[in-house]
């Protein structure tokens, strides 16, 4: 093998990281759908998908093939370029934000951290920024479909996402204040000292911030009980009514990828990211590869718990009414988030 320069090595390793993370994320998206169908099936006292492969495990593959082979309908009255591009915007924004998520302990190969694609100083802001760009996918799809159900759905979605973005951003300020940085690695490191006890949700007393984040995140991803944009009882299917085949699949994947991103952020900010709940108790035991794999295991486990919670909530709670949704966001979550910031900064000023 010829000697590669540092830049080429960096490029090759980064491209490899991107491909691996993308493949894993898309697989995770596919299997989150299966998990949702299985879990909701069990909660509603039925089996869920069980025919394709053992325990229905090949169902995502069958769904993918079906969606690829379906006819791609293009209604006559749509705004063609925007109609085509909006599912791409939605999916791209949902997938890009995973790039700044550190999903393991720092482990460098040739000077490149292999458990995070991009380690940037403002990682948290990048995630928030990309999430706020994702609104365009939904807003434009509804408008360009030239269909009143789609338009209503997309107007609801954009209003809801903009409203809850405030509460979401403010709920994270407490964590940022404690860590003193927007870099996700710093935020994770700030809670890694004593395992479970130093996580922001327990040791950092950010439990209020966590619940505000959790509720705002459900609304941000347009999931039950805040799934008004696609309320099937009133709006057919909301903003993606006119979409078929892979364009519909892109919206579907974007929704689940957003769920994964939101779960990753909750894990990183409130549950210590890739750190073990036992702190450094078992650091010295076991072979070297274990200390590399265990953080990834903990991270994936925490994200899985969040995804399970998402599904559990969806199958348990009924949908909000629209005015209730807005009142809840603006009159309850937003003031509460501000109170949380004031309390956290007062406590920090008193102790620090």
């Amino acid at each position, binding site marked *: 093998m010829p000697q590669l320069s540092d830049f080429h090595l960096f490029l090759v390793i980064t491209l490899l990281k991107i491909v691996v993370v993308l493949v894993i994320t898309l697989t995770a998206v596919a299997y989150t759908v299966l998990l949702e169908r299985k879990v909701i099936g069990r909660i509603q006292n039925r089996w869920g998908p069980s025919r394709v492969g053992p325990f229905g495990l090949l169902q995502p593959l069958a769904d993918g093939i079906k969606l690829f082979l379906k006819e791609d309908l293009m209604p006559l009255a749509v705004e063609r370029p925007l109609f085509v591009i909006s599912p791409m915007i939605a999916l791209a924004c949902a997938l890009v934000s995973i790039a700044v998520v550190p999903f393991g302990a720092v482990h460098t190969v040739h000077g490149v951290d292999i458990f995070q694609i991009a380690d940037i100083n403002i990682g948290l*802001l990048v995630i928030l920024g990309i999430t706020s760009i994702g609104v*365009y996918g939904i807003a434009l799809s509804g408008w360009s479909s030239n269909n009143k159900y789609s338009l209503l759905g997309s107007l609801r979605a954009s209003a809801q996402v903009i409203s809850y973005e405030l509460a979401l951003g403010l709920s994270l300020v407490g964590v940022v204040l404690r860590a003193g940085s927007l*870099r996700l690695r710093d935020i994770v490191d700030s809670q890694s000292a004593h395992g479970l006890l130093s996580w922001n949700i327990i040791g950092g007393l950010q439990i209020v911030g966590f619940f505000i984040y959790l509720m705002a995140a459900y609304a941000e991803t347009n999931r039950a009980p805040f799934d008004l944009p696609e309320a099937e009882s009133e709006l057919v299917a909301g903003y993606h009514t006119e979409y078929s085949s892979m364009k519909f699949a892109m919206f579907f994947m974007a929704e689940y990828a957003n769920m994964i991103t939101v779960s990753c952020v909750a894990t990183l900010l409130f549950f210590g990211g890739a750190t073990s709940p036992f702190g450094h108790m078992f650091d010295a035991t076991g072979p070297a590869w274990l200390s590399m794999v265990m953080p990834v295991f903990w991270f994936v486990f925490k994200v899985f718990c969040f995804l399970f919670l998402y599904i559990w909530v969806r199958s348990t709670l009924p949908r909000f009414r629209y005015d209730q949704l807005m009142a809840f966001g603006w009159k309850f979550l937003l003031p509460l988030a501000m109170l949380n910031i004031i309390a956290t900064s007062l406590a920090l000023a008193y102790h620090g």
Partner: protein
Amino acid sequence: MALALFIIFGVLCVAGALNLLFQRHPINSALSLVVVMMALAVIYWTLGAEFLAAAQVIVYSGAIMVLFTFVIMLLNAGEEERTTGSKAAYFVGIPGVAGIIALLTYIFLHEKAALGYARLGGSLDTATSNISEISRVLFTDLLLPFEVTSILILVAILGAVVLARREQ
């Protein structure tokens, strides 16, 4: 690398701005503006102003322009019509734009030394955090302007609330 990014996004920015002017449909114009703002954010980032870049994306592309598109969708604005009514635009507009560009070019070239030089990608390799620098300046030297601006924005919010509650 930084130079390549600068060229790509500079061209994208100018192309977006031109497209904004030439598009007939307001929603296409609004989307071109979003492209301009995103490209500007990348240029800020290549100059090392990462916080500014993120704020640009979150505030302008993510909030303000979403409201713009929202309003355009709600009002159901159609394509604009070409009118020959405004002769003033030809006689005042084009010389005016040329004058402003000439003035700005003159000032930038004349005050070159005082304005200083930006280094492409120069500040990115340092470990200093943008945010701590900005907040230090904002809460020490520029505290009064900062607070005055926040009061101004608060007044605007109160005004919006009063206008929205008028019917009661």
